[in-house]
């Protein structure tokens, strides 16, 4: 019997070490969502994240940004995924990102969804379940 499990890569990149939230989310996706979560730790690069996403064949990449570089990171992440022919991997974000930037990033397609601080884990799980195309 097929046992499809949603695989999610959670990442922080660059000089940004506020990781309490992303670790909480990892735990939540594992325990409440029954998902397989790959957390790549701190200080990685986008290139490393994308290679990991391809090799581990994840369905989603979640990027948490607390250092203000969200407007550079998200578009670049999408670019790198496309370069690896992995545009089917959906990108979601979180962290300290102003409302206006959230709207802009979503509108430009640089990210598929951005969750604001304080979003309950259940809402993120619901979004992942609803958007899993399983490609």
């Amino acid at each position: 019997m097929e046992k499809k499990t949603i695989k999610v890569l959670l990442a922080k990149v660059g000089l940004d070490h506020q990781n309490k939230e992303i670790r909480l989310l990892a735990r939540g996706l594992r325990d409440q969502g029954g998902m397989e979560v790959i957390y790549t730790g701190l200080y990685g690069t986008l290139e490393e994240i994308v290679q990991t996403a391809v090799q581990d064949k994840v369905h989603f990449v979640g990027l948490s940004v607390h250092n203000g570089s969200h407007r550079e990171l998200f578009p670049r992440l999408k670019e790198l995924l496309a370069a690896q022919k992995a545009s089917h991997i959906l990108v979601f974000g979180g962290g300290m990102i102003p409302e206006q930037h959230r709207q802009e990033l979503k509108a430009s397609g640089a990210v598929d969804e951005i969750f604001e601080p304080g979003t309950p884990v259940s809402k993120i799980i619901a979004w992942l379940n609803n958007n899993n195309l399983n490609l």
Partner: protein
Amino acid sequence: MKELGKKVLAGDIRAASRLIRNLEDQIPNTHIAMQEIFNNTGNAHVIGITGAPGAGKSTLTDEFIYAFRQKDKSVGVLAVDPTSPFTGGALLGDRIRMLRHAEDKKVFVRSLATRCSMGGLSKAVGEGIHVMDALGKEKIIVETCGVGQQEVEIINHAHTVIVVLVPGMGDEIQALKAGLMEVADIFVINKADRDGAGKLYKETLNMVHMSKGAAADNSWNIPVLLVESVLEPHKFAESVDAIREKVEEHYQYLVDNNLLVERMRRKTAAEINEALWGAILQPVLNNLEKDGEIEKMVEQVLKKEIDPYTLADQIASKYVK
């Protein structure tokens, strides 16, 4: 789907990662791709790294990748972490230690969750090794999830098994027990700068000598190696390179003494078993699950209307002639 195996043989990373996911998810007809690659497997040297949780397996694996890359070997890694028996979820954290190799084209790292299979490995490991092998990886490192005394499934897959020990896990009686301590081709005592490392080293050596006494003269001398000071990268790299040399030596020993084929025999028997299971039992289970029969059976047995053995007999008589 049909071409997946051929793409893997051509070195396509994306095809390989898709194939491994299909294996994990047990997608029907994945065996077609496996049929395509099977004859091109059996060339790689498979190294197993096992030990208790937190013994330092991932950190050692990371350094191993580096050591092998210094010798220009291509490396595949299958890193296994546990699945929650309650929720089916898993946190795959081995990657954190290996991120520095992510961009190296000759390194392929794959995290696998156990998905509740026993023995400290995922069911997809055996086939995952074939995929990496077909991809042309020369050294394949399989890192088990943290294991206890009895999770020795790794011996069915690896040619060289490294057991990682750390000080402070119990007295010398532990070293005499069966299971994990028997499967090592190489012992590594990690965190050897900690209290109790000397004692552990002596006890392990003792145990190795005792088993050597009972074995044939030309049998492999199981080395016990110390690793310390992760905080001093050069020293750490040196001690891991010393292990790498022993690993190569062990492989040569297996080849010279015609023992490699013996190791493969174990795996092949297990593989036929698995394939039979997939071809015979799995379709039956699928049918039962599809019709919701399984739940009905559980209810019946719970109410003691029937026992599991009679039930199994009934099903068997329906399918097996």
